[in-house]
């Protein structure tokens, strides 16, 4: 084995444990809700229908207020695929048709920090963040385990 081969082995010996630790670290997408919501009733199907605006009010007549990250955000793509079963791009046709029926898509904010701030201060609000961004200001409604081999989140924690 030459010098270059030895250097490669050394580099792998140093890097592999780091990569393995990062790859195996549990990371979840957390659906968060304002404290006014009864989260025990929020199943995956219910959350999907809130985000599709099929469900506009709860049993007491209070509005559900879902909030999204921008369509280009990797976490939105993961959320959309996992819970709504379609990518943001696939849903564009759906939202154009809903808009014509008077139903607009969820509001958009720029970052996970903004999602938490919005959900914490807005009655009936519901959003999603990574577990590393979770805050005590909101309550957890639902957890989605992420698969790093398929969920492409470039900057997972901001």
């Amino acid at each position, binding site marked *: 084995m030459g010098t270059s081969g030895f250097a490669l082995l050394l580099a792998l010996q140093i890097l592999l444990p780091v990569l393995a630790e990062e790859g195996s670290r549990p990371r979840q997408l957390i659906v968060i809700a304002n404290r006014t919501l009864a989260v025990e009733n929020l*199943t*995956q*199907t*219910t959350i*999907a*229908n809130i985000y*599709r*605006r*099929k*469900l*506009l*009010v*709860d*049993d007491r*007549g*209070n*509005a559900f*207020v879902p*909030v*999204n990250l*921008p*369509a*280009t955000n990797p976490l939105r793509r993961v959320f959309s695929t996992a819970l709504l*079963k*379609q990518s943001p791009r696939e849903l*564009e*046709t*759906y*939202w*154009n*048709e809903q*808009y*014509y*029926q*008077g*139903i*607009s*898509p*969820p*509001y*958009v*904010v*720029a*970052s996970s*920090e*903004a999602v938490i*701030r*919005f959900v914490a*201060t*807005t*009655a*009936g*609000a519901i959003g999603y963040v990574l577990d590393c961004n979770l805050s005590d200001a909101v309550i957890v409604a639902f957890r989605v385990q992420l698969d790093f081999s398929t969920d492409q989140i470039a900057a997972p924690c901001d």
Partner: protein
Amino acid sequence: MAVGNRIPNHGARRAAAALGCALAALAGWSAPAYATDAAAFNPAPEPGHGYSLADLRLNLGGYITVRLKDLKGEPVQFDLRDINLLGTWIPTARWIFLAEFKVHNPIAITADRVSGADAEVGLERLYADYAVSPQLAMRVGKILTPIGRWNLTHADPLEWTVTRPLVTVLPFATRATGVSVHGALAFDSGNVLDYTLYVDGSKALDPLRDDIATEDIELRRLHNAFDTAVGGQLRYHFWDDRAELGASYSNIQVRGLKDRSHLFGVDGRCFWRQVEFTSEALIRYSDGTRENSEWGVFVQAAIPLVESLHAIVRLEQFKGDRAATRARLGTFGLAYRPQSSMVFKLEYRLGGHNQAVAPDGAFASASVLF
């Protein structure tokens, strides 16, 4: 949707962001709604879905279409086909008010004249919607008649073709005025059943209603305006909402006809390998006579060719006994969607026994949903 009573008030910054979003949408520019760091924490509408006045809980938008048509035996015409303005007001969580105004053909240009003589201004929809429960809402006012699928999504930017299948417009009034209840029932599987029941009293509530012809013809003996109607529609969404099936029934009293009519319709849409298939079939017949029966069907495929460019193929057949309303048609075209809210279309329609209702010809259009 403006749910402003539950959105923190950030005043001018949000208004500025909303205005920027609206202008961007009108310009066909799909930049993010949050254009500045200062606006980054403010909730904003998804781009391309109207201009939101969140403090007033009001959303304003619409669509516009320009068109070129070259029908056999007629001069080539360029027209501003539609300007539709759509406003929604959501004062509380349970209430939604919607109004849609339409200006049709305000300007038509041919080789020898510029005219506004065919201009029509009208109220497409005007209703109040009250959410009785999560699964039930009541609607009062002028609505799109819940028959088939095309009629409910007929805005030009939402469709793949310039022309509309005959079966989606000739046998029934495309708008009804009265009361309806509607809602969505979700199943654990994720599938959803939408339902609508309606009672129409157009004769008393909308005396200005008129028979609706296709845009290219005026069949004087053709009647499809409702005096009264009662009916409903079921629509089942499945395969992660990549497929849906609809069924419609209406019992109608058509203006000018002696007997009441039954109208049955089925429709479907399915996405398979990025190809969108749609179809509708409908039959209408009267209690007392077969004289006024009509039926029709169409199937359509939108096939992706390259990014944003689709080939469109539609075959249809329509048969009516009242007038010269029987035709077999084929429509073949291209649709280019640089954004989901903007579409450029080019198509050619040809057929048999179709000169009276849908003559052979070429069409092109550009439409923007804003």
